């Protein structure tokens, strides 16, 4: 019997690391040309981005079903585990609702804690990985959940997008609407705050966006963990990582990739950084 962490695929949690840390990632769904795919299961990132730029209609996404969560929780509870289930911001997705409804089917006494992280993607990855570490030090899933909730504010997420087009078409642009439209090419930098997307800066090209991203991270050091994520340009992510290599030991870095669900909103050539600041 142990405490197990559950999340959803909007965390973009690397599959290998999930396996290593016994983390269950419940897939969200992506619908392309009327066919529904489970994120990361039926559809890889490479396939997705190829379809994203060639499909005439923008793909849509949906949260995992209540049933998908029920199955996962049931398995874990039957194995005698307690569950801390950490999810993408409720303001961006209905995932946390599905999880909450699934939990309710097991009654009030079920050992499941559901957390709306207010984060997404690499930011959520940070919270989930920190939670997995906490399970090694604690025997109380409530205690782990309380600590996770308390630490959520330590994680900052910055996104540098090539275009706001996908975020806008997908209806997740939030307050970053203010940055939509400029006759000049800009590479908008956005952040997540209070569970929503907010505008931050408008550098004029990719190089300056990269420079500002590293500066924004450095302003929040010392770091406890760092994550870098990309949609299509692995080399850019590697470049960012090498620029920040002196901030943390190698093992505290996570490099991930925007999966189909997030990719549908950030689009090609997107980069993201998350930093969990030391308290």
């Amino acid at each position, binding site marked *: 019997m142990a405490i197990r962490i559950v999340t959803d695929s909007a965390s973009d949690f690397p599959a290998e690391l999930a396996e290593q840390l016994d983390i269950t990632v419940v897939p969200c769904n992506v619908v392309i040309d009327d066919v529904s795919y489970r994120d990361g299961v039926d559809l890889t990132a490479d396939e997705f981005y190829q379809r994203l730029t060639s499909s005439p209609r923008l793909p849509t996404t949906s949260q995992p079903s209540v049933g998908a969560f029920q199955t996962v929780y049931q398995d874990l509870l039957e194995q005698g585990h307690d569950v801390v289930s950490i999810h993408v911001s409720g303001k961006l997705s209905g995932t946390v609702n599905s999880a909450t409804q699934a939990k309710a089917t097991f009654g009030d006494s079920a050992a499941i804690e559901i957390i709306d992280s207010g984060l997404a993607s690499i930011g959520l990855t940070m919270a989930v990985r920190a939670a997995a570490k906490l399970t090694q030090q604690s025997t109380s899933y409530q205690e782990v959940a309380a600590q996770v909730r308390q630490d959520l504010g330590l994680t900052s997420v910055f996104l540098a997008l090539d275009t706001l087009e996908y975020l806008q078409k997908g209806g997740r642009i939030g*307050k970053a609407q*203010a*940055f939509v*439209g*400029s*006759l*000049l*090419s*800009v590479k908008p930098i956005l952040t997540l705050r209070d569970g929503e997307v*907010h*505008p*931050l*800066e*408008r550098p*004029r*090209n990719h*190089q300056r966006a990269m420079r500002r991203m590293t500066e924004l991270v450095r302003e929040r050091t010392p770091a406890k963990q760092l994550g870098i994520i990309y949609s299509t340009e692995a080399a850019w992510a590697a470049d960012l990582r090498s620029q920040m290599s002196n901030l943390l030991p190698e093992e505290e870095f996570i490099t991930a990739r925007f999966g189909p669900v997030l990719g549908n909103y950030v689009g090609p050539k997107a980069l993201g950084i998350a930093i969990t600041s030391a308290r």
Partner: protein
Amino acid sequence: MDVLQGNELAQALTAGFRCLERYRDPINALNVYPVPDGDTGTNMMLTMRAGVEQCAQAAQAEEATAGRVARLVADGAFWEARGNSGVILSQFFKGIAQGLEGKEVCAGTDLAQAFRAATQAAYRAVGNPVEGTMLTVIRCVAEALESRLEQGGADGNVLSLWETAYSASREALDRTPSLLPKLQEAGVVDAGGMGIVVILGGAYLHLTGADVDQADLGLATAAGQIDPTQLASVSVESDFLDASVESEWGYCTQFLIQGDNLDIDRVREDLARTAESLVIVGDDQFIKVHIHVEDPGAALSYGVARGELAQIKIDNMSLQNQDWAAGHQAARQEPALPKAGIKLVAVAPGAGLSQLFKDSGCAAIVSGGQTMNPSVAQLVNAAESSGGQEVIILPNNKNVALTAVQAADRENDTQSLHVALTHTVPQGVAAALAFNPEASSEQNLQAMQEAAASVVSIEVTQAIRDTTLNGVSVAEGDYMGLVEGNLAVIEDTPEAALLSALSNVGLSEDHIVTLYWGADTDQERTEAVAQQIEEQASGIQVDLVSGGQPHYPYFASVE
């Protein structure tokens, strides 16, 4: 003549204004830089116009005190101030009004006191007062009046003191080139200073009984003695502010409200909800209204509910831009929302630049710039229409900066105005892109000023006359490349001027160059020159924008 009655003061100021109206073109021609931005005379005239019309009205209608006449001119000038010289002139009148506050009539000692207050107000209007400008002229007048009174020479005769003032202003004007080397080099006297001389001279001649519409003040420009027969004719009963109206929309509606205890701020605020191009001046008994509205009937009903209406005039403006008008009417149907958030208002010359600022997040655009300096009232109206609780104004021109600062100085409880002091369009674009509607005004102002400071601005324009600048002789027709407002290069074509200005700045592959091509340039030529820039520094990013600005074939920024 021991004292000036209120109506006599009003007539004298009106005469000064009429003289300014006649002399505006020679004053316009007095600019140091041979760039097509000479509009000091026009700016001063437009600044003074509304207040003078208003005080002439008040003086006719009833017994007006000297204090009230001065106040009316000052209030009108405050709202209509445009260009740096206009802002200084408006502060000059503000000082005059303070000096005559509560005075029934204007006696000799009052005149001296008024000029002393006017000098202080004018010097305070600019952050860094420079001698050899209209400030010097105003100060010398105040000093001459004081010393004349100390010597008891005038026996308190107002006409004689006015003569003292006028001749002191002329002497001071003649000295401006020796105080300011750039005037000396260009072979001109200060334009704003001449404006003061013309106003005082017109008033003086009127007081002596001369016809100011024929008078020859015997002034000279770089081109030689001004021929009074070549001056612009005075537009008798000219349309109220016909030269200053920026939008061609709806019905141009003008009327005068006469009543008791009129609340001009309230009237301005109420009418701003449905009107454009507002010019509203007056006091608690007379309010002159000039607005562009969709429904003139509603505006007249509003006015008649507050007092008696007079001088009603309604014109249907031609709809020059159907798209804009359509969008505008749709917007007008929305109910007025409470002011909220931080909004940006930018001053932009040209359709392309207006679109760029709009696209970059500006809530309202005031058309204007180098030769079309907007007034305080236009900036305040745009701020009102932006709906922001706080508004940051981007003047984007050094000639608009003071006007913006004066606009921010107005009293208003529901909206506070700030100015990001951008002196060029490229600075303004960089500042607009640094704006974040979610940050505080302090954070935004800091980020925007930093962004503006991080770009080097280049402007290319054509010399409109022969002159010498910084030791370099410039011939009419030459293309000048200005870097950060200073003449850097002279070439035969706009493209050559642009390229040499850019190489003066020094380009590297890390730079981003943005080219804004003007109304008289085209995309093809801009693309060709962009290619040359890319060849000069491989890997450099060159972005092109159709700016549509007049007079300047290219604006460019390097960042």
